[in-house]
């Protein structure tokens, strides 16, 4: 019997749905499951059946921010639907930062809107009831291969190792900084001079949060080919509970010192290294990558 998969949407933009639809092996993954209902793919039941509360559900995928009241589908509060199926499900996957922590849409009504089990980084009143089944996949959107990893682990009856925010450690153990093609510039504290250049690090001025954001974007590339930082866009920290912050394209500094240190790096260690690296002028890093002596 294939596990029955229900994808429910709350306050969402559908980004996670479309991200998952981009998975190159989508249908071989889905072949392990029976789709009860999905916002875009065919399922065994209609939306009306889902709203009636009567469809089966082994795996509940939640997309979108949660609000206790004020959001109705077919006359029923979405929150009630979510809880109905969260109670039925053996596994709950919160797909995306909105469903996990609240995300962008939380900012419309911060007191009432949050993630399902977490409100920013704090546990909600619902956490206790559902924590034992919960896997968090924050990201805005989440990467399709993060979802397929979780689904295939479930299909293979494997236990997923998770952290205290219920994120799979095998995915979120990395930082977005891991594997960025600009790492050498980070090591030697070379800022990029402007947008649109492949040389230079985006951490010092352009607001890149890669060094302190958990995610595997530069290891499991986006669309099998790239990532924000590889294409010159700073990481905006979209997997973190605090996403989105303000002034995303600028690094907050105190007298030129980044206000937020790379993950786990003590400030003194970072500053000592900075002092050392900034004392040396490495010729190769002052030139364009493709302009080396050929």
């Amino acid at each position, binding site marked *: 019997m294939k596990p029955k998969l229900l994808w429910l949407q709350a306050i969402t933009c559908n980004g996670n749905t479309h991200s998952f639809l981009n998975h190159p092996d989508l249908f071989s993954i889905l072949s392990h499951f029976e789709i009860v209902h999905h916002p875009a793919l065919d399922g065994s039941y209609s939306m009306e059946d889902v709203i009636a509360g009567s469809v089966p559900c082994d795996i509940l995928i939640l997309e979108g921010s949660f609000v206790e009241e004020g959001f109705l589908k077919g006359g029923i509060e979405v929150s009630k639907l979510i809880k109905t199926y969260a109670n039925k499900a053996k596994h709950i996957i919160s797909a995306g930062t909105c469903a996990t922590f609240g995300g962008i849409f939380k900012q419309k009504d911060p007191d009432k809107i949050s993630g399902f089990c977490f409100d920013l980084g704090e546990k909600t009143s619902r956490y206790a009831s559902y924590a034992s089944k919960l896997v968090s996949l924050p990201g805005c959107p989440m990467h399709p291969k993060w979802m397929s990893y979780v689904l295939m682990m479930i299909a293979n009856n494997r236990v997923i190792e998770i952290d205290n925010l219920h994120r799979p450690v095998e995915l979120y153990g990395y930082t977005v900084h891991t594997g960025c093609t600009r790492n050498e510039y980070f090591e030697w504290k070379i800022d990029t001079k402007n947008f649109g250049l492949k040389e230079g690090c985006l951490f010092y001025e352009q607001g890149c949060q890669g060094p302190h954001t958990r995610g595997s974007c530069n290891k499991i590339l986006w669309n099998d080919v790239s990532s924000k930082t590889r294409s010159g866009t700073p990481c905006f920290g979209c997997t973190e509970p605090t996403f989105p912050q303000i002034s995303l394209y600028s690094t907050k*500094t*105190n*007298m*030129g*010192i980044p*206000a937020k240190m790379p993950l786990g790096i003590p*400030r*003194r260690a970072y*500053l*000592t290294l*900075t*002092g*050392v690296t*900034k*004392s*040396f002028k490495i010729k190769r890093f002052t030139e364009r990558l493709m302009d080396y002596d050929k």
Partner: protein
Amino acid sequence: MKIAEKKAIKRESIIQTALQLFSVNGFHKTTIPDIAGKLQMSVGNLYNYFSSKDILAQEIIKYTSETLGKKIRVVNELDVSAEQKIHKIVDIYFTMAKEKPEMIEYFLRVYLSNREVFSGDCQGMVCVSGFITEIMVFFDDAVSSGELRNQDFFSAFGLFMGYLGGMVFLKGEDVLPQGIEFYIDDISRNIYNALKA
């Protein structure tokens, strides 16, 4: 006492002696044999600790930086205001200028004035990082708490250190009418007023 500890103590005494001699006779006139003689050790043995006078010079600057840096770290870790920390840092600096003038003098008269000695392995801020790091920590804390105005690091650093260095230079020239400790309050206040938010 273990051998490693003995060696560390010996190393430090070489540095202290060198500092004294540089301060009295000048950097260029002081030789390795002079230093070895003062310590009653053989020149060959001294070279076991520092393979050349230039290397010794570089190690001394690291040593003085770290010594100053450690004291400033203690201040950084106190739960007091930025204004009070400035006062304590100025106090440390001027007290050292008074009690161990050879250390501060070394920085002004040897390090800053003999760049060729330091330009190889002590490029930029490499050898003074012990001290610079603590000043960076101080500024970072004070700006993030909103006490000091956010500005370019070097503008603030230049103001703070240039001011202190200048005062110590004047002291060295015997120009100051009062003992240097007399100036701690005024100078701290001036620095705070210039940098505050």
